[in-house]
């Protein structure tokens, strides 16, 4: 690397699933991250230098994340790493960053184990236990005590969410009347739903991604199951409504933010995103944006890009006004912040309430 370059710019790495099975998540978070870096540079950069984002595609494949992250660290000499949405790939990258002393910020990996890897690993989202609790509290507040759970056993995210939901619900007066599972890619859920129907639940938790949840809703209605469905942030995609149509109406899911929130931070973000990409941002985009903004803030406070100092500055992040809420990084390096509950109404995701930690 030419010395002049090193002086004028701060290189930040990003790894995301830009292609492959979860490309839609990766592309969203990438758009948010890239927009944040552009904004930071338009405002004069950090420490008088421009920020340069180097992105690598891990193709949504196991094993690839480890390779591209090593590439970013040893070839691009990045000072910090942003990514990934999927916990399984963040878990591949985290030990490498920890060992190299490069701070890593995951925008949306909710598996608690990610930040347990070491003190260089942070995240700007809440974690599965919290989201499980939010959903359980919400169900109980609606007086839905008998819950059926449908878990995607192929997705670590879904398994975790169901587990933490159940843990909270069962000690707070609810009962899990039926536990069923499927594997992502399945199209037929009638067997599980028929078994669920026999247990007459008040609500069904579909803790997997939107790809299957829309279909689950459809088939539940075909079997005349009237119980509403609830899910986590994996539902956040227009595809949920495209596939699920009328069947997902009246369902609820937890998310990181709501586009309906009148807060100025969110509305400005919406407008800027719309101007740049001509589409509505989803939660992954907002979290990608926040991850870059929090990094820039920490670099400013640290006054340097040296790994250990930057880590300490990140760990000291307190009440940072981000798009997805006020973020304080707790001693476990997770973001303490609220979640929102959304309802599917007329094909749109309507804001219902905010649930504080």
């Amino acid at each position, binding site marked *: 690397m030419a010395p002049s370059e090193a002086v004028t710019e701060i290189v930040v790495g990003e790894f995301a699933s830009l*292609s*492959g*099975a979860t*490309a*839609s998540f990766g592309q969203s978070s990438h758009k948010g991250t890239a927009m944040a870096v552009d904004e930071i540079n338009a405002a004069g950069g950090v420490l008088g230098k421009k920020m340069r984002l180097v992105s690598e595609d891990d193709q*949504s494949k196991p094993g690839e994340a480890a390779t591209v992250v090593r590439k970013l660290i040893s070839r691009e000499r990045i000072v910090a790493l942003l990514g990934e949405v999927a916990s399984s790939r963040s878990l591949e990258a985290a030990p490498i960053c920890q060992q190299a002393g490069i701070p890593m910020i995951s925008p949306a990996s909710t598996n608690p184990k990610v930040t347990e890897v070491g003190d260089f690993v942070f995240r700007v989202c809440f974690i599965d236990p919290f989201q499980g609790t939010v959903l359980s509290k919400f169900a109980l507040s609606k007086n839905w005590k008998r819950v059926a759970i449908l878990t995607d*056993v192929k997705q670590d995210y879904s398994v975790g969410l169901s587990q933490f939901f159940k843990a909270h619900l069962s000690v707070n007066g609810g009962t899990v009347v039926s536990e*069923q*599972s*499927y*594997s992502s*890619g*399945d*199209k*037929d859920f*009638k*067997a*599980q739903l*028929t*078994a669920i*129907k*026999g247990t007459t639940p008040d609500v069904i938790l579909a803790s997997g991604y939107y*790809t299957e949840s*829309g*279909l689950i809703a*459809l*088939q539940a209605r*075909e*079997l*005349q199951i009237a119980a509403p469905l609830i899910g986590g942030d994996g539902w956040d995609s227009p*595809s949920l409504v*495209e*596939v699920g*149509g009328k069947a997902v109406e009246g369902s609820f899911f937890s998310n990181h933010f709501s586009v309906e929130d009148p807060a100025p931070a969110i509305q400005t973000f919406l407008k800027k995103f719309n101007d740049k990409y001509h589409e509505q941002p989803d939660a992954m985009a907002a979290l990608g944006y926040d991850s870059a903004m929090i990094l820039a803030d920490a670099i400013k406070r640290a006054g340097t890009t040296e790994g250990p100092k930057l880590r300490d500055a990140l760990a000291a992040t307190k009440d940072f006004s981000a798009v997805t809420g006020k973020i304080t990084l707790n001693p476990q390096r997770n973001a303490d912040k609220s979640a929102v509950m959304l309802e599917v109404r007329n094909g749109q995701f309507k804001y219902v309430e905010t649930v504080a930690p």
Partner: protein
Amino acid sequence: MNEFLQQLINGLSLGAVYALIALGYTMVYGVLRFINFAHGDVFMVGAFSGMYLSRWLKPLLAHWPEWLFAVVVLAGSMAFCGVLGIVIERLAYKPLRERPRLTVLITAIGVSLLLEYSGQLLFGAAPRGFPSLIESRSLSGLGELHATNIQAFVLTATALLLGGLHLIVMRTRMGLAMRALSLNPTAAMLMGVNTNVVISFTFGLGSALAAAGAIFYASLYQAIEPFMGVLPGMKAFVAAVLGGVGSLPGAMVGGLILGVVETLVVGYSKVLGIPPGYRDAVAFVILILILLFKPSGLFGKQQREKV
């Protein structure tokens, strides 16, 4: 009891789709003694061609009755996949007819990967909603049980297609030629059977059936993606083996049995003590057991390999 009957209905409608795909496997195997690995991916192409066809035709045929529109889309996709099947056979398999079976098998895997990844390139990896050709309605008069008109339609259509296929194989000259070829290719050729035409016809017919299966499957489950054919394709293969490869009624029965067994395993996982996550393993366990204990399947004829 009601729940059991309901699971039976679920299983049968799933099994009907397996059966339709299995028919294609069985026909090709019967004539060529080779498993067309790419069959499940032709199935996927059938679903996507149905989606595009119906989007394209919708404005043109807006005033047509629903069922007629559905039949047009079905026929269009079947024709498209039929041609695709013939083209695949001509380009990829025909040059290999005298080669070892392993070579043909690898080529078939190549064709399968080609269709999957080209599909991903063209249509993207995310699942797409399949337009509902027929409005889904609940059938009345079943009491506590629930079935939709689409489920009923799929079961009926599968039975009709099986019947039609049986007529073609047993009552037409082409069918006679197919049977002759399957019995002894050399002798058939010497008797004046045009091998190339018969093989093309078989591939075309098998692929058209896969397309029909795809339209039914997509109407039942309403989401399609480039890798959607992999699992149903493998399960249909298991169904074909279960029924006895080469036997048409065998494929049908095998498909229905597999659909029902899979559904019951998931639905009664607690009682059976099998975690429902094992669903996809069920088919393979059945396959291995069948191959070990009755390789000829339920309806197949015992065959010995001659030197």
